């Protein structure tokens, strides 16, 4: 097999560099595609870099503690029979030809604004240049934004076109959510599809975004090719009042940090920069009112208002549900409420953010699900 580079990934719009925290595998170990190879910390969040393909970890190029730009060579994967001189030459060639991205010029794919019902909706549209097939449409959860998909976008974007959306009241979209009812959110997503000329799409939704995706599929099954729901709302009545009310009420870093920690199974996933980022969002004019309107309608007093797992019983829209067993925001037990025929994947040691905590698993599960749902 040819030698493969494992490089510093780009997780999110603003990531320019990462620091090697710890190697998870030794040189000489056999790896499968998707195995976690090395732990990397970024300004905002820590994550694991996964093997692009099966092979043997031939060389760990980057040292623990080293900070490297996006795209820099971290390791070489290949055939165990490759001789050391060949690996040396490969490393030298890769490092010599590497041009670090200019932080100002190459900020990655740019976001765009789409006008829907008088509201600005921010989207990130990316993917292979020659792909004009139905896109993946990514819908984040309550209080999130399209950058929540930072760990999975780079992989999915290699395979097919995708559109990540900031729901009204979130991210770079207008903060006006009207009465905060679901129709405003589903309307924004459908409006983006219309504006982009997308007739049918694969919807991927997290939490509140899972409910948005489910509602769109139930009302417009002709526009949805598949549903991939990650810890979705809308299946059962419970939702953590500590999380929802805590998130809405928090105005300082100190109040917000323990709330955000509830999103993850592992302690320490929430960095100071991540808290800052969310706090900066929460301070924007209109955000407080938007969150209160959405939560007041949909998640009042620790109960979900819009519950109907039967909506997933759609003949022509295959659904996949992914849940972390340690979810502290919406209990993983809701996965048992789905109708027959819906595929359920429960992930160990995972909280409410599988697409952050188990990005590789989520990437593969959704990619396979979508592939199986592609029309003949």
């Amino acid at each position: 097999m040819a030698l493969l580079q494992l490089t510093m990934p780009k997780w999110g719009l603003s990531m320019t560099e990462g620091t090697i925290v710890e190697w998870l595998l030794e040189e000489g170990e056999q790896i499968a595609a998707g195995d976690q190879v090395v732990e990397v910390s970024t300004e905002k969040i820590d994550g694991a870099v996964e093997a692009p393909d099966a092979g043997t970890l031939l060389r760990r190029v980057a040292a623990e503690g080293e900070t490297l730009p996006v795209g820099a060579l971290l390791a070489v994967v290949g055939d165990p029979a490759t001789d050391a001189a060949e690996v040396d030459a490969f490393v030298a060639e890769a490092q010599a030809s590497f041009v670090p991205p200019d932080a100002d010029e190459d900020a990655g794919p740019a976001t765009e604004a789409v006008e829907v019902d008088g509201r600005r909706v921010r989207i990130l549209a990316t993917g292979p240049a020659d792909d004009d097939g139905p896109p993946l449409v990514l819908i984040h959860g309550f209080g999130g934004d399209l950058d929540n998909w930072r760990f999975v976008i780079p992989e999915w974007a290699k395979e097919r076109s995708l559109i990540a959306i900031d729901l009204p009241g979130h991210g770079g979209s207008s903060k006006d959510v009207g009465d905060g009812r679901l129709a405003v959110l589903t309307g924004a997503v459908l409006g983006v599809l219309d504006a982009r000329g997308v007739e049918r799409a694969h919807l991927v939704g997290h939490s509140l975004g899972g409910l948005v995706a489910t509602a769109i599929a139930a009302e417009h099954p002709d526009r949805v090719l598949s549903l991939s729901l990650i810890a979705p709302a809308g299946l059962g009545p419970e939702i953590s009042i500590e999380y929802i009310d805590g998130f809405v009420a928090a105005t300082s870093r100190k109040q917000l940090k323990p709330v955000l920690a509830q999103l993850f199974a592992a302690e320490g996933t929430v960095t100071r920069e991540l808290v800052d980022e969310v706090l900066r969002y929460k301070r924007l004019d209109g955000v407080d009112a938007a969150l209160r309107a959405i939560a007041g309608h949909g998640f009042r007093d620790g109960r979900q208002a819009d519950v109907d797992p039967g909506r997933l019983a759609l003949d022509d829209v295959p659904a996949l549900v992914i849940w972390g067993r340690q979810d502290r925001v919406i209990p993983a037990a809701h996965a048992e409420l789905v109708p027959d025929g819906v595929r359920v994947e429960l992930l160990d040691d995972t909280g409410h953010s599988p697409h952050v905590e188990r990005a590789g698993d989520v990437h593969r599960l959704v990619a396979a699900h979508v592939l199986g749902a592609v029309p003949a």
Partner: protein
Amino acid sequence: MARKTSFQNAINEAMLQEMERDERVVVFGEDVVGGSGAPGVLDAWGGVLGVTKGIHARFPDRILDTPISEAAYVGAAAGAAASGLRPVAELMFVDFMGVCFDQILNQAAKFRYMFGGKAVTPMVLRTMFGAGIRAASQHSQALYPMFTHVPGIKVVVPSSAYDAKGLLIQSIRDDDPVIFFEHKALYTLEGDVPEEAYAIPFGEANVVRSGGDVTIVALGRMVGVAQEAAKVLAGEGIEAEIVDPRTTSPLDEETILESIEETGRLVVVDEAGPRCGFAADIAALAAEKAFGDLKAPIRTVTPPHTPVPFSPVLEDAYVPDAAKVAAAVREVTGAAAPAGVA
């Protein structure tokens, strides 16, 4: 969406967005329009350094050049605020406070108290301060401790473009008189600033950098100086935590004390004079409320008790710099200075 913009533009944008949102917001001061002698409003200077540029073109009836009488227009701001407007007045240099201090000290600061809570005074007094640009001793002082001393006034000293916009918006929305200190050497500093309006609450310190070995409290331009020092110290294995209180009144004591509890050491960096100043205030806070946590004596890094010198050599020696901050940190951590560093 955030994009990079300057401290100066962040302040300009905050005023424009608040004027757009609330028609009671008006701006006045010396040369804030700056159109005298210019052929058209678009050429208007917008203040000596252009911070209010463009406001006259958008809101010609709500921005006013005043005569050179700080006593008159600062008093007018207090009165306008007490009677329903939300004025943003500009005192060109805080060094000029002497000619309008009664209007601030005895009028604006006291209305709410003297009228039994029946009056509010939502005025903002924006003012330039700080040394480092060869402006001599009457245009270079850092006089926020004088205002911090007066109950009834809120005092804001931003250190970044992001904070400048959010804190100025909060200042305009606040119902009490606010003195907003803009360090003139920060105007060109760029940072990520959302285009949308946002308010940063007062009395909430910003932990600019995390570290476990020493707490550095700094304000305004000194935050950047502390960051520079922290970078050098990190190379020596010393991790400094930098706390920027952002407002000296109200003061976020809790965040400062919690940091000292973790690090056990305190260095306060301040551009204001050493006597009865901000550094002395924070040192006293730590001595009274965190003495048991301290592993080393508190150190302050301030200018000497002298006027700001005009001589460039002396002015540079007067203002605290990263080398002085790093030296103070080495002293409290017991670290040896690296070779070549005195």
